[in-house]
């Protein structure tokens, strides 16, 4: 928010809706780790799953739509902004921001959490608990920005490539939901696992639908026919 005031002095006004998105996004993230929902999550698996939907999917999506990197780049002094851009262009960031890497970190991490004993271990170790929740959020954010290009993205991939990876990720999420439904994680009662699995399945679908919609919308805007260009391209094929 401070960055918004700082940079509004020097540039075109930062869009109000982006600040709102950021505010709602961070609220959902905080709601899932602190407060009554987080309290209930310790005893109620459905509440845990709702918290994870907020932390790993909804908050990252809303925050990515707020374009924080764009704001940061225009707020920082030029020298530091250049350094940051250089970092964004670097090889490790290229590997990390590849949709496939992001999917493995995101969906793979979830499979590790729910299909092994990790979920039970998490409730016995504070460090593990904090680490897993940070991972869920960061992996969710990384995945969102690897699919949707809201901020400056130096390493870009085609719509088709991102679409295929997105379908795979959605499938991985859906399969895991049904796996949890059928095979409750250690320490979870069957009826709780069923309710949690269903919430994960349908809740995930809702948020994924928004991501799919935005990806298609970006394609639709980018594929806008320009005067004569379509015919020229066609004839040159």
């Amino acid at each position: 928010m401070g960055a918004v005031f700082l940079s509004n002095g020097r540039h075109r006004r930062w869009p109000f809706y982006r600040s709102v998105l950021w505010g709602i996004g961070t609220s959902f993230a905080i709601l899932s780790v602190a407060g009554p929902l987080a309290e209930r999550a310790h005893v109620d698996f459905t509440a845990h799953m709702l918290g994870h939907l907020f932390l790993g999917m909804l908050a990252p999506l809303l925050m990515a739509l707020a374009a924080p990197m764009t704001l940061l780049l225009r707020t920082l002094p030029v020298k530091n902004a250049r350094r940051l851009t250089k970092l964004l262009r670097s090889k490790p960031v290229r590997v990390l921001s590849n949709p496939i890497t992001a999917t493995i970190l995101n969906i793979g991490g979830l499979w590790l959490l729910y299909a092994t004993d990790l979920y039970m271990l998490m409730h016995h170790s504070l460090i593990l608990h904090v680490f897993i929740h940070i991972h869920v959020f960061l992996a969710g954010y990384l995945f969102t920005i690897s699919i949707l290009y809201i901020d400056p993205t130096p390493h870009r991939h085609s719509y088709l490539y991102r679409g295929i990876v997105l379908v795979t990720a959605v499938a991985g999420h859906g399969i895991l939901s049904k796996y949890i439904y059928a095979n409750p994680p250690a320490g979870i009662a069957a009826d709780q696992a069923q309710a949690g699995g269903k919430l994960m399945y349908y809740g995930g679908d809702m948020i994924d639908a928004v991501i799919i919609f935005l990806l298609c919308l970006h394609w639709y805007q980018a594929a806008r026919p320009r005067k004569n260009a379509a015919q020229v391209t066609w004839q040159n094929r």
Partner: protein
Amino acid sequence: MANGARKPYYARNLWSGVLFGLGLVAFFDEAVFHQLLNWHHFYDKSTTRMGLVSDGFFHAFSWFATIGGLFMYADLRRRQALWKTRWLGGVLLGMGFFQLYDGTVQHKLLQLHQIRYNVNILPYDLVWNITAILMFIAGSVILFKTRRQAGTGGVTNPLSNE
């Protein structure tokens, strides 16, 4: 104009329809048979691992296809290249294909879940799969007809003198 713009987008009309049809029937399946009638089960104890994977991928793909297919439709419209008959043929083909796959491979082969429980399942299976085949055939007929209308079979040969 509309006819002139159709040809380059001949294939896209078909694909937009197929994708949307696939998504439509999957959405219908979810809304009516899972949610409203409660006939289908979210998970059936006989579900195989392959069934889970197949269902997951088809579900994800159909979710994407519904939205993507509609954006393609909007794209064809703004290019004045929409060919409604051919698009409709694609929709029927996609619907028929998905329902047939769901009714044979997913319900029967992979035992994902049945159409309804505690009833004689045969009439349900027959109605399900015969409807699928009828939609598939109707779609194919429309597609062959529009193909004939397009003349050269739709594919413009860049080396021809036409």
